[in-house]
């Protein structure tokens, strides 16, 4: 009984960590710009596809991974520069449609540049499952947990200990005031997109050995990442992590104990319930409505 529960938990943690990494990207951009970037899933796809196809083409893995991260960041910067920056003062919904358009564009480009087939990466530390109290866990899942943890620590350090990170936080609190004290708002926006694209690529690379990837892989990851970010409270990095883990674990426990056909529905019901009682997510700031 306990072994089964532990296995459900591992399953949930594996999915949850993947969702959490996706959710973090949403949180960073939202923090800096109050934009929800619906193309976040595509950054993940680009990271996975670029690294997988490069490795398949014979490029050594570390180099392939680095290149994939650079490609993804370049795409993130281009997206900000050419699509978000010119429309910075538009309505929230308008910017949402721009990012949705961008995600469709990137999927279209990916199927032409690469192909429509599934690709995989070799697992970083082999494929021998680790037994824990009767349950098993793949080494690659540990990589996902580890990378997620490193990312959280790195982000915390960046936002709280570096000048530039603090400037980004300041912009998120009050754009005008930040500008008045000399923070380059444009630069901050650009950096936030580069950072979340990088994060997406990292996520895409570590999860590809588990989930595989193809040009449409970003749709589901984007959707789950958005759910994770909203559940945790928008703009709160830690919240996105907790949100992702809750969604993943809820799905796994639902398939274990209730119904696997309705596990996704059950996860959404949980999100709805949380929002009914905590309209700003689990850790979100209370919004104030200006008159």
């Amino acid at each position, binding site marked *: 009984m306990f072994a089964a529960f532990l296995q459900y938990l591992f399953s949930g943690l594996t999915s949850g960590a993947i969702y959490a990494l996706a959710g973090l990207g949403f949180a960073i951009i939202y923090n800096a710009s109050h934009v929800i970037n619906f193309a976040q899933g595509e950054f993940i796809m680009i990271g996975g596809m670029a690294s997988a196809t490069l490795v398949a083409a014979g490029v050594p893995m570390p180099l392939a991974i680095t290149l994939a991260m650079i490609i993804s960041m370049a795409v993130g910067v281009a997206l900000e520069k050419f699509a978000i920056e010119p429309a910075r003062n538009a309505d929230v919904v308008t910017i949402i449609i721009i990012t949705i*358009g961008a995600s469709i564009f990137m999927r279209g480009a990916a199927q032409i540049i690469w192909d429509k087939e599934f690709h995989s990466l070799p697992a970083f530390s082999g494929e021998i499952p680790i037994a824990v109290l009767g349950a098993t866990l793949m080494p690659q899942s540990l990589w996902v947990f580890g990378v997620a943890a490193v990312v959280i620590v790195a982000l915390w350090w960046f936002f709280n200990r570096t000048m530039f990170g603090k400037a980004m936080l300041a912009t998120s609190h009050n754009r005008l005031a930040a500008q008045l004290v000399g923070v380059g708002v444009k630069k901050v926006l650009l950096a936030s997109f580069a950072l979340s694209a990088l994060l997406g690529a990292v996520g895409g690379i570590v999860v590809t050995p588990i989930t595989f990837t193809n040009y449409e892989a970003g749709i589901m990851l984007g959707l789950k990442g958005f759910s994770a970010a909203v559940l945790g409270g928008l703009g709160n990095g830690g919240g996105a992590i907790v949100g992702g883990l809750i969604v993943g674990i809820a799905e796994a426990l639902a398939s274990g104990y209730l119904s696997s056909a309705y596990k996704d529905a059950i996860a*959404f019901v949980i999100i709805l319930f949380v929002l009914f009682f905590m309209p700003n997510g689990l850790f979100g700031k209370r919004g104030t409505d200006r008159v």
Partner: protein
Amino acid sequence: MNFKTARTGGLALLAIVIAAAPIGFSNSYYYDVGVNAMFNAIVCVGLNLLIGYAGQISLGHAGFFALGAYGSALMTTNYGIPPIGAMVLSAAVVGLLAFLVGRPILKLKGHYLAMATLGIGIIIHIVLKTESKITGGPDGMSVDNFSLLGVTVMGDRMWYWVAGGLLVLTVWLALNLIDSPVGRALRAVHGSEVGAEVVGVDTSSYKVLVFVVSAMFASVVGSLFAHKNGFITPDIGSFFHSVELVTMVVLGGMASVFGALIGAVILTLLPQVLAAVEQYEAMILGAIMMGTMIFMPKGLLPSIVASLKRRGAGK
């Protein structure tokens, strides 16, 4: 030009365009695309009341559309209820559902509301997909023709005129609603909710009202779509369809009845036009969406009208 004349002029123009368009239709495929465009337009005019006027986003309206479609399909096939009755009953059920979920959901703001409506749409989609004994599952189910008072609506030409008539009626209704006290209250909600409340507008009731109305619009069109197509799959209730509907509204122009209509028509025609360049379809579609929103952030129609006005003032 004041609002009243703009309204009558716009309605008349719409009727003329609908009546004249078939001159260019060489076969019933064109009528079919025309019907789809007008069906989408009706849903979008309804959805625009919510998004454009009340300022509330919904990423779940395809769910209501699908419920209307499946409601009609199941009631007519399994219980022998006449199509019109099934359509009204489905819309009533959808309206009730929207009312029940609307109250708690519409307390949410911005992206949280988007998330909640997204969740509801996805849950509906999952149910339709999973309960295959009732709905036929992902492979879909077939639907009988629509008939009323002994007349069966059949063929794309006939559907074209039915859809055209309904579209004119819908636009007329929407324009009147916007011009009514309810419409003014809605715009106040959009401008500033707190402000609206201070001057005595019961904002939450109005928001729920518009949510219910727009969901019922979607449901009715879903019913008609099911009868017209003769076959439905759960995909009509998918998250992609919801996003598509919102895109139509925003692209065409929020808070503009005719804008939503134009957005719906363009985005229905675009995939048909782009089918020729197949491989690049997604890239071009994405680029058009981004380009339009970057250069016309208020949407096509309002931006064009504004630039015409500027040019007129310059002379």
